[in-house]
């Protein structure tokens, strides 16, 4: 990771590192986490300066249109996202009282209504595991949560199901598995709304036994 020395001594460390001959490249992934090191401008008179620019450059921030440099940049950015997954706030998992094949994913201001809705559903005998996502890129726990459940309700307050779309593109999961629970009439989402939608969806998911008619 692009770990930096404590703020107060960072500049001194950098200068010593550069003088010792350490290789510095503004976009060079030194330790495999996809996050290159940086220097503080004005630190060293001859080393450590860099020119930030778009994607047409190599790992040393020099102009380059070479395909290999572009591939290097793109793959580094992918690694950077993988690293970011571990650094951003982790999702919060709340298991239902009983093992269940239903899960719900939500975020932000939906949280309180979701907690209340889970309690209402429990009273009706519907148990739902809850996962509150707190950051993007999604941690591996999010994909794992989807894999562990047969049906996952994605509860959010917009018309297009933006979180669900992110989950589909990032998690590479089955779209049929992610059921939209969308609230977008301008008022805050309520526990009654969520529990109602989930309860009716659970009813639809119930499989009625096939009656055998004796002949």
């Amino acid at each position, binding site marked *: 990771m692009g770990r930096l020395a404590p703020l107060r001594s960072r500049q001194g460390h950098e200068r010593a590192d550069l003088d010792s001959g350490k290789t510095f490249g503004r976009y060079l992934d030194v330790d495999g986490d996809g996050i290159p090191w940086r220097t503080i*401008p*004005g630190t060293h008179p*001859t080393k450590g*300066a860099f*020119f*930030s620019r*778009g994607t047409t450059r190599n790992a040393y921030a020099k*102009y380059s*249109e070479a395909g290999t440099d572009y591939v290097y940049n793109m793959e580094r950015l992918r690694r950077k996202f993988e690293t970011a997954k571990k650094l951003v706030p982790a999702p919060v998992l709340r298991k239902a009282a009983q093992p269940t094949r239903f899960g719900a994913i939500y975020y932000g201001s939906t949280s309180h209504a979701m907690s209340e809705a889970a309690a209402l559903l429990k009273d009706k005998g519907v148990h739902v595991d809850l996962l509150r996502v707190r950051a993007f890129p999604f941690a591996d726990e999010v994909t794992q949560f989807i894999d562990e459940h047969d049906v996952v309700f994605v509860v959010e307050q917009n018309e297009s199901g933006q979180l669900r779309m992110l989950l589909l593109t990032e998690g590479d999961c089955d779209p049929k598995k992610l059921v939209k629970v969308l609230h977008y009439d301008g008022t805050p989402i309520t526990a009654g709304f969520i529990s109602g939608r989930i309860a009716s969806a659970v009813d639809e998911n119930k499989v009625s036994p096939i009656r055998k008619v004796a002949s």
Partner: protein
Amino acid sequence: MTYLAKPKLLRYEQPKNALGYTRRDYEGAISTLCAGCGHDSISAAVVQAAFDLDIEPHKVAKLSGIGCSSKTPDYFLGASHGFNTTHGRMPSVLTGAAMANRDLLYLGVSGDGDSASIGIGQFAHAMRRGVNMAYLVENNGVYGLTKGQFSATTDKGSKNKRGVVNNDSPIDLAALALQLGATYVARSFSGDKEQLVPLIKGAMRHRGPAIIDVISPCVTFNNHPGSTKSYDYVREHNDAVNRLDFVLPRDKITTSYAPGTARRVVQHDGSVLMLRKLGTDYDPTDRVGAMNYLQERSAMGEIVTGLIYVNPESGDLHTALNTVEKRDQVEHHLRILDRLAACRPSAARRRGGCRRIGRAAAHDAGDQRAARCPAGRRIRPVPA
């Protein structure tokens, strides 16, 4: 041809400045612009100015947007820090960098499309906020990278290469900067290095927003008869209000000026702007007069060049916000932040460490008043 490196051979005994650097030390990569492009002359002028002022290259941050002009920071000051930002967003990125690190010389490089169209909002607010920067507009009146469409600084009635006449009114960036509160406003011509270099020097040593609108003909798309940004047109219609001699505080004024022929302006750092008068009795410290003069001459089809306006007593954004000036003070505050960042509210509460770290931080701050840690808990003062 960017893969071509500059030859390392040096002319024997190249002149060196006070830091021991040659002009080559202020150069950058080989230009990829068209041969004869005015922008390359501006790059050369920047190199000359930085060399003459004994500027340490690593103490310069050069920022640009997108366009032919914004490519040029790659061609000068190769040992400086650079940031090729998104289109028209250079002023914002520069403002942020300048607020974070005030020790650098900030050089904003932009073009007429980047500043007068895509980033006009950014340009306007950087000027009115008083960001301490030297803002160079390499103004060719066309979008060169996209093959010569009119830009917002193209004069009304000017023709493009195919003979199409521009019907839109032009934006005069120098006039706009004056109106918005820039404290060093100049216009020059890339074909007049003698005029341009001292203006860049003055801008680099000015405190506050300094802008130079440099008319820089585009040899490929805007250097034909009918264009008002061609080499010939600018030479014919150039109305220079003064000639600037820039003198560093350490240097003596060696040129002799006949009484009444030059005006002396001393900037905040002691550098002297000796403004040789050219014909008219132009006063570059009269803002309203400058605005009127620009409008009058513009109506006559003239291009006013030279140092149009300067306020030697200007402040900047740091002055306005009363930011911390000394590095040790900054580091002192960063040390406190380091400690507070180490205080994770939940863990610290469990350990009772919140108070400990908070007290240490308060002690570091030399502040015996009660402070609060990030968890919101009150920190008791520590006896000195």
